């Protein structure tokens, strides 16, 4: 009797601990993790459509904010309990690949002849390492200027086709000077302008921007002829000591010396969007994922303008996310079905209609654009920038991404604070970065 009860209890416990899938009727539950709560609704709609087509599979969406997303993911991998399908960012995935945590989907992609040409050029290849493929692209983003419509109108500047160079800053710097207003109402390009008592700054630059400067210095440096890495993805030599980067960085630093931007040590830690919303700065540089945040602002009226043209033309960072499969998943086939669906036009059209991000499939992008325009948001320039064959560059993807982020980020801070000049700080950082690859 006792023994039987014990056996029954054990059986119950065992069934429970098998968990996840076994509901008895052969159905499986997949966990899908993402960080952007703004996109959760669209993906829930995808999941609903997917569940209807595949009655045996249920999708459980697991949303964690960006700040805790990666730690959460890693610790769950350690305990063998990671989500089956994971939203992944290109600069983060190499370390998971290195530790064998992601599933190679190349055999399935080949067997089922997934059309990789339906995606924006370059996006699918970011997820290939040594002949193995780890993800299917889901969306992309480009960079533009965001500006305060009233302040720009008052200053009477035209932002539609700016130029820039690291020596005198081109018409971009002239615009920034004009947009800056001191406490006496004098503009930055007027006589008597007091750079120590500024009421409205021309620009709120995002300087604390890791090793890539996606929201500013990276884009302008590339338009100045700078290249991050010898091969992308998975190069092994970085070029942070390039003088063309140092020039760009020095120019950004000069903005605060001239009063057009807040000195770095007196910068708000609440982020550029908080400063722009307060009306204390006229423009910033931001990515297409921020479209809704800015255009739905109730405090200020914002609009977008293309990045300035540098000596090598107008260059925007082009970055994308993908859906990947955890190698420890117990439901490989179901997970692949879901990833394939996420990468299909059917799901990406749903995402397009929700108009939060631009889907990776080229045809779905037009749909997202239409949805934005129907909502009165003029964001075509992000798409035009992506379409321009010379208009974008892919952010560097390599091993040691997190360490490089810290090394270069710290070196940049030293420059912004005036502790070191750009050339010596970046040369030292580059040596440290490349030493990471030599040490293997």
């Amino acid at each position, binding site marked *: 009797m006792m023994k039987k009860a014990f056996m029954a209890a054990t059986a119950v416990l065992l069934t429970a601990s098998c968990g996840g899938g076994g509901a008895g009727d052969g159905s499986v539950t997949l966990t899908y993790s993402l960080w952007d709560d703004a996109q959760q609704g669209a993906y829930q709609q995808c999941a609903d459509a997917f569940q209807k087509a595949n009655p045996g599979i249920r999708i459980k969406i697991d949303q964690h904010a960006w700040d805790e997303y990666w730690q959460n993911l*890693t610790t769950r991998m350690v305990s063998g309990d990671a989500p089956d399908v994971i939203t992944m960012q290109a600069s983060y995935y190499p370390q998971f690949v290195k*530790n064998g945590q992601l599933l190679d989907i190349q055999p399935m992609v080949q067997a089922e002849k997934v059309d990789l040409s339906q995606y924006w050029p370059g996006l699918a290849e970011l997820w290939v390492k040594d002949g193995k493929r780890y993800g299917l692209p889901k969306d992309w983003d480009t960079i533009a200027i965001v500006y305060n419509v009233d302040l720009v109108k008052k200053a009477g500047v035209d932002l539609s086709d700016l130029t820039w160079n690291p020596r005198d800053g081109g018409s971009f710097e002239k615009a920034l000077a004009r947009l800056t207003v001191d406490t006496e109402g004098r503009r930055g390009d007027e006589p008597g302008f007091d750079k120590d008592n500024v009421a409205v700054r021309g620009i709120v630059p995002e300087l604390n921007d890791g090793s890539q400067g996606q929201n500013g210095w990276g884009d302008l440096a590339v338009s100045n002829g700078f290249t991050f890495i010898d091969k992308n993805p998975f190069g092994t030599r970085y070029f942070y000591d390039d003088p063309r980067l140092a020039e760009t960085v020095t120019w950004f630093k000069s903005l605060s010396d001239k009063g057009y931007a807040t000195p770095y*040590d007196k910068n708000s830690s609440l982020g550029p969007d908080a400063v722009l919303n307060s009306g*204390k700065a006229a423009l910033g540089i931001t990515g297409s994922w921020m479209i809704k945040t800015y255009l739905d602002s109730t405090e200020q009226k914002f609009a977008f303008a293309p990045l300035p043209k540098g000596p090598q033309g107008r260059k925007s960072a082009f970055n994308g996310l993908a859906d990947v499969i955890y190698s420890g998943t117990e439901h490989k086939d179901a997970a692949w079905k879901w990833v394939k669906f996420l990468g299909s036009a059917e799901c990406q059209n749903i995402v397009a209609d929700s108009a939060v991000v631009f889907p990776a499939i080229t045809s779905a992008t037009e749909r997202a654009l239409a949805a934005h325009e129907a909502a009165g948001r003029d964001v075509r320039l992000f798409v035009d920038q992506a379409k321009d064959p010379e208009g974008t560059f892919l952010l560097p993807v390599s091993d040691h991404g997190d360490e490089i982020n810290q090394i270069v980020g710290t070196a940049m801070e030293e420059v912004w604070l005036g502790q070191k000049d750009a050339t010596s700080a970046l040369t030292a950082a580059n040596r440290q970065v490349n030493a990471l690859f030599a040490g293997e």
Partner: protein
Amino acid sequence: MTAMTLAKSATRARARRRGHGDGRTALGFLAPVFLGFAVFYLYPAVRGAWYSLTDWNLLSEPRFVGLDNYATLVGDPLFWNSLKVTAYYVVLTVGMQILGGLLLAALLHRLTRSLVLRSLLLVPWLVPSVTTALLWMWLLDANLGFFNHLLTAAGLDNQGFLTSPDLALPSVATINAWSGTGYTALLLYAGMLLVPPQIYEAAAIDGTGEVRTFLSVTLPLIRPILAFALVVSLISSFQLFDTVAVTTKGGPVNATRVIYFYIYEQAFTHFKMGYASALALSLVLVLGALTFVQMRLLRASTSDLT
């Protein structure tokens, strides 16, 4: 002589026998605590010590690397920097907490014994530290913060309290002193209540002033409590993590990269769990040594009252 020795050893033997019997019972009562200690402290600590000898990165199997992590640690400028930053922080915040605490406690003790005031003192300490940090981050923001609004309204320059390399650490220290002073004050106040009132009466008859009474009567007599408050606030301020994680993330340029935050970054941002364990173990040694020295210096286990 021999008789005395014999008597003594007999007592000792009896004591030992009885002690043995009590020991079993005591062990029974202590077992739950020992179990908790073993599972939640001892086992993780031993594992941590083992990991500090490996290159474990959370995801792959740990590989034994001997003392490599410790060798890296000795040559790691960021480790030494984090110790320096932590020491600076500890001096600032413990100094502010103890001085502020003493002042408040003396006021409470000599002026008012209002229960409401005493409870109010604890309020900042009761607020979750992440909330405190967020609140102060907004108040101290360089562009949009209330404090800078006051400064500029008074015709002064605005300050990057949390964004300038010179001000960031003192600001973090002040935030935590703000939240911890009330608790320290309450501890010290409790200590002051233990001082017999006759001594104060005697001091008053001798005609000593408030300051002299405080320095010559109160302070020496609350020494064990003071030592306790010092050790507790010292250890807790060595463990500074949340305020930094919320407000400065270790920046600007390592100015607030305290040891706990550095360990956390190594473990969960760079996934160098082996190295992080080595860092943590070194911190245990530092803390142990500091506590020992402090207890010795302050003779905390004896009181001048007895």
